[in-house]
């Protein structure tokens, strides 16, 4: 019986020694986060399922490569998931509308006065509509911005953990996150503005 207080490092060590129960405990503890990370990044449950399986298969094969000095087991798993996802997104680049051109977005937003507009992009929407709209806005971000939003805002990793997953300095995470949030706000406002224009035209 594996004690629930056993840390990820110990579970991984036991799993690498062939302890099936330890592997199962580690999987059950971490699969949800990996699955949701992949789901938010891809927008497709089947991709999230495939990536989750690939991540833990990689752990079974190469778990001994984990180095505690370089980060947590969780960050190690997210890192593997990220690599799989980026390869997958690159492969599906032409079929998935991931992002519009960032600079064009920003220029258009500024010209239309959206960026500094006082329009609340999510006002008067039901909770389900808010969730769906934010989900679509996140999926429309370029991958480099999307991953920081998913890791820091949706998976609630701190900047240090995100930096280890993304293999970049903490400062880069901060700046990307700031930029990503600004882009999300712009996108949501643009959607809201277009919606209000549509209502006005009908009236």
């Amino acid at each position: 019986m594996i004690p629930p207080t056993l840390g990820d490092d110990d579970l991984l060590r036991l799993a690498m020694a062939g302890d099936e129960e330890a592997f199962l405990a580690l999987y059950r503890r971490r699969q949800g986060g990996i699955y949701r990370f992949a789901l938010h990044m891809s927008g497709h449950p089947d991709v999230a399922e495939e990536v989750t399986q690939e991540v833990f298969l990689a752990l079974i094969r190469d778990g001994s490569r984990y180095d505690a000095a370089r980060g947590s087991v969780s960050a190690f798993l997210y890192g593997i998931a990220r690599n799989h996802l980026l390869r997958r997104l690159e492969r599906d680049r032409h079929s998935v509308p991931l992002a519009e051109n960032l600079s064009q977005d920003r220029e258009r937003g500024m010209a239309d006065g959206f960026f500094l507009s006082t329009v609340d992009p999510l006002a008067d929407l039901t909770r389900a509509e808010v969730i769906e709209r934010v989900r679509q806005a996140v999926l429309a971000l370029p991958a480099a911005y999307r991953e920081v939003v998913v890791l820091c805002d949706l998976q609630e990793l701190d900047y240090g953990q995100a930096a280890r997953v993304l293999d970049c300095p903490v400062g880069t995470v901060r700046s990307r996150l700031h930029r990503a949030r600004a882009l999300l706000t712009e996108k949501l406002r643009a959607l809201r503005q277009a919606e209000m224009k549509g209502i006005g035209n009908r009236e």
Partner: protein
Amino acid sequence: MNCQEFELIVHEMAREQPLDAAVRREGLAHVSACADCAGLLAGAYSLGAGLRALAAESPLKEAPASVETALLEAFKQLTRPAGVRRDPPRWESARWVMAKWVLAATAAAVLAAVTLGVRYWRAQRTIPEVQPARVSAPAAATDRGAGDGNPAAHLAAASRGNGAGSIERRGGIASQATPAAKLATDFLPLDGILDPLDFEQAELVRVSLPGSALADLGLPFNEEAETTTITAEVLIAEDGTARAIRIPR
């Protein structure tokens, strides 16, 4: 604080994230005097709320149970202790099966070639199993039966194994014939005519005959020879008939 500086801290302010108290105060003071930045802060609050709603909805989502099952199976396969045979992955297994079939087919082909080669070699080098030699002696002679003095009849009797003589097949005449120096006679045709074609694909069979058979062949014969057994070589044509006979010395 100006608008550009406020834009840098707006999301931290909206998310109640750790921010220097003095900077937060400056930000709030700027918002109270700037309508645009107040709208920006409202948008950041709204976005924060939307992201939290999305994050709150997500914890219910997990990988399906089939993933856990597949991973456990893979774990068992990949972490089996050393010395225990590991079942190969499906693609590896298929390749191995194909390789085994190729090996088996190659081994079978080699075995067949060796077997055929040995059989051919033995057919060339060893005395084949004795087969009944049909004798196409003159009709009158064949009807007389064993021991009536006709060598063809003796041959037939010998081939039937009735005790009148015995047959030892010697194979091809080229390699098995008795050297000329050891021959008492040349081939004597059994049916009157000896065609050169009879020697093609013919076999030479050594037989034992009663000495009285010499008289039937027109060879010198004495009373003593009648009770003795002589050895003769019979030429058996391809069609199995005895065509000629000769007596080694």
